[in-house]
């Protein structure tokens, strides 16, 4: 197990380093460069000045040398300034991360609490009306465009009913109720999509487990159907589901880019979108790397969960 963890950890680290180079190179391919931005702010600059500035900032160096310079500076703790916000990158990043955690944490918890019971219930009564209902809802959840669902919720609850704000976040110091009002629509959007996919996984995993011999044995020994489903089967059925959840957990931190953008929720997703669109190279780079690192860690977590939950799994020739 320790060997497995070490290998997977190293692998993730290698992927992260490769991705940091890829992202750095991609950011460099975005339209414009920092010098263009300086020139646009100062009409007196000549082409020679621009070239001198490029040399001064090392922008004329080949990509790998620029990457190396950035990496060594970044590792020494200097991640640069955000152009859009005029603040050090991390000072912009952490509040956004906090907002994303609030939004996504609520949506994730809600989705799990709804999806697992309804998925299990549907599987315990296959081909019943409830099963068809859950299945239909699950299909709708994975097929609906998130931004359109968000727009429809805004139309119904903000435009027509006027109950909830169409976007934004409560100002600091607002009451809990006021803050919650801004959360309802984005959480509903994200949770609907997640409930769709989670309940589908739960249902199919549960169906798989319910076909197994030990379930029949438990039934034959007189355990009630309900007991068999919720006590005997659920634990095993959860193994693949927990893995999926752990995987999704990583995406929580990169935020729901689309939903956050539509509802102007100042989280990581909106931050990434705004920084890429606004040529904020430093911020975009660090935010993307942050999202990548967290997603990779969640993948690692998913692998660990899988091995830990299911002692039957043998990894790399030794028992986990």
């Amino acid at each position, binding site marked *: 197990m320790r060997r497995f963890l070490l290998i997977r950890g190293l692998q993730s680290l290698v*992927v992260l380093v490769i991705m940091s180079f890829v992202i750095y190179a991609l950011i460099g391919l975005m339209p414009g460069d920092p010098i263009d931005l300086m020139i646009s702010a100062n009409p007196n600059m000549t082409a020679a000045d621009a070239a001198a500035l490029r040399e001064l900032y090392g922008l004329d160096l080949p990509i790998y040398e620029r990457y190396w310079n950035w990496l060594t500076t970044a590792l020494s703790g200097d991640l640069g300034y955000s152009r859009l916000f005029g603040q050090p990158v991390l000072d912009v990043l952490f509040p956004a991360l906090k907002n994303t955690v609030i939004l996504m944490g609520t949506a994730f918890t809600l989705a799990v609490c709804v999806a697992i019971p309804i998925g299990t219930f549907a599987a315990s009564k296959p081909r019943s009306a409830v099963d068809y209902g859950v299945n239909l809802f699950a299909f709708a959840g994975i097929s609906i465009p998130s931004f359109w669902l968000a727009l429809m919720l805004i139309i119904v609850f903000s435009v027509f009913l006027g109950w909830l704000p169409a976007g934004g976040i409560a100002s600091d110091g607002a009451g809990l109720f006021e803050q919650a009002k801004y959360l309802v629509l984005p959480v509903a959007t994200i949770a609907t999509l997640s409930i769709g996919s989670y309940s589908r996984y739960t249902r199919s995993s549960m169906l798989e487990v319910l076909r197994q011999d030990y379930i029949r044995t438990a039934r034959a020994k007189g355990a009630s159907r309900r007991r068999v489903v919720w006590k005997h089967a659920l634990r095993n059925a959860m193994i693949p589901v927990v893995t999926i959840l752990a995987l999704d957990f990583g995406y929580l931190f990169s935020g729901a*880019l689309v939903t956050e953008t539509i509802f102007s929720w100042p989280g990581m997703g909106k931050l990434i979108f705004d920084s890429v669109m606004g040529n904020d190279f430093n911020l975009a780079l660090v935010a993307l790397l942050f999202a990548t690192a967290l997603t990779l860690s969640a993948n690692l977590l998913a692998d660990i969960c899988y091995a830990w939950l299911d002692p039957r799994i043998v990894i790399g020739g030794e028992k986990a």
Partner: protein
Amino acid sequence: MNKNSPLFLAIRRFRRHKLAIFSAGVLLTMILLVILAPLVEKWLGVGANDVDLYSRMVAPSAEHPLGTDELGRDVLIRLLYGGRVSLFTGLMAACFAASIGTVIGLFAGFFGGRLDATLMRLTDSVIALPLLPLLIVLVAIDLNKLGLPPAIVESEDVSFYRIVFIVAITGWTTVARLVRGATLSIKEREFVMAAQGVGASNLHIMFRHILPNLLSPIIVAVTLSVGGVILLESVLSFLGLGIQPPMASWGNMLTNAQQLIWEAPMLAVYPGLLIFVTVISFNFLGDGLQDAFDPKAEY
């Protein structure tokens, strides 16, 4: 046809799947409608990009069956032409992605060893990335800086090819895993050994003997992924990064709808509804095909 042939049995199982049949009907209707878009255009007498600032956001009438948008363009015709773009992008990108996945999966499964380990690590790594944020960067890059000729960069269709390309290079992982797994078991079968015995080359065995056995799972995977691709295209176009106006797509028709949501909420309804119906139909269809081809999978 032989009543016990696998294909016949699969068709019979598929026909029991009412929702899938219905979805296939919906999709065929949709495809027919978007193909007939020029006829509707002629019938109504307005083009998809005809701007008429005197009749902005008008209510549905005989002249404009679904009304007009913020530039006075006819919504119905734009929906039909947008459907062409969205459906075509979805199908083409899904097929490209599946082709890449198939080749990678075949090579990994057939040759095994180092190659397999490397390709599968690559697949795992791509799966482990936060896709949407990275896609945003990928679509934002400046094609001039890549050294592409200006004729390509400035052509009207470039946003379309860009989307297809980006979806293809990120969406191949599911098929790659699927094909690899199946190749691993098929390559041990007698007919592969027989082919090796008579001296067939590796490539010949992979593409002529193994691949045909994988067609049904690949078809299922492609059908299921078309929906996802259409969603992705619509999201990127909605954010202003996908299909570029004036070319209509269901996604970019919604871009301005959010600003106009207080004045003309219906503009936001139609394109999204069509995306939703199309995607859910592809998903139902894929689900039905899966049950038909692989009866063990459910129940």
